[in-house]
């Protein structure tokens, strides 16, 4: 019942406007600033930028690849820097705490999704339950 070691950091991108649009269509958040170049420029931005929930989703999935999709019990993200076309994102994480709660073995992990500049796009925290067979569900 030990926590599996974090996998290697995973790289995504360079991201394109097409990636942004696909996420918007899938999520249902069609705010134009994330796909409409004319609208984004008129609002003072150099181009559209991604919906924050896209990189939040990418980071969440990286964590479930590590600790199991069935085992997640909490996922929280804070949005930091915007993500732009051409950005390359890197997801990584580390174990913060392993403990027992109401008869379940749990682990809290800290997660981070950075841009190629080193800037943080999203910061995340998650709780997973641990089973004796590790990340297998």
């Amino acid at each position, binding site marked *: 019942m030990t926590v599996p070691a974090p996998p290697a950091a995973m790289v995504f991108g360079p991201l394109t406007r097409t990636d942004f649009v696909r996420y918007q269509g*899938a*999520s249902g958040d069609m705010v134009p600033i994330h796909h409409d170049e004319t609208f984004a420029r008129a609002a003072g931005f*150099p181009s559209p930028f991604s919906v924050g*929930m896209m990189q939040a989703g*990418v980071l969440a*999935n990286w964590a479930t690849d590590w600790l*199991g999709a069935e085992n997640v019990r909490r996922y929280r993200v804070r949005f930091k820097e*915007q993500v*732009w076309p051409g950005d390359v994102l890197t997801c990584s994480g580390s174990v913060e705490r392993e403990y027992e709660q109401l008869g379940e073995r749990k682990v809290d992990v800290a997660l981070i999704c950075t841009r190629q500049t080193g800037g943080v796009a999203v910061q995340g925290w998650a709780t997973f339950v641990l089973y004796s067979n590790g990340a297998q569900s």
Partner: protein
Amino acid sequence: MVDRSALGAAGEWFEMDVERGKIREFARATLSDNPAYLADERAISEPTFLTTMIFWQDESSNPWDTVAMDQERGLHAEQEFTFFGPPPRAGTRLKARSTISAIYDKEGRRGGTMTFVEMTTDFHDADGALVAQSKMTGVETSRPPDSAP
């Protein structure tokens, strides 16, 4: 400008079907190749999947507009999902309700007041058990957000 009287506003209950094709589409859109999302007959939903509740809500079930947050100065600050067991699988029908659960101010590091608004959505299964909760935190800043990449 945030309308503080929105605190406690609740939407109507709404239904949300968790569907295999939607889970698969969402996995593609969030750049995942995890077979738990893509291959399983009764695929499990991704940790952020419940954000697709937008498709199941209408004006009567989504109380967010009662907050009247300024579009120019409004940002999505944080998002949290809590699961009281494994996340819902394909084939699950959820009953959900959104409530404006908190409104509070904080002083910004560069001056100015930031107003935070939380909307909590509770998701129940067919037996009425609370299976998941989503909490969205929006913030209204006292000036428009930076536009520099």
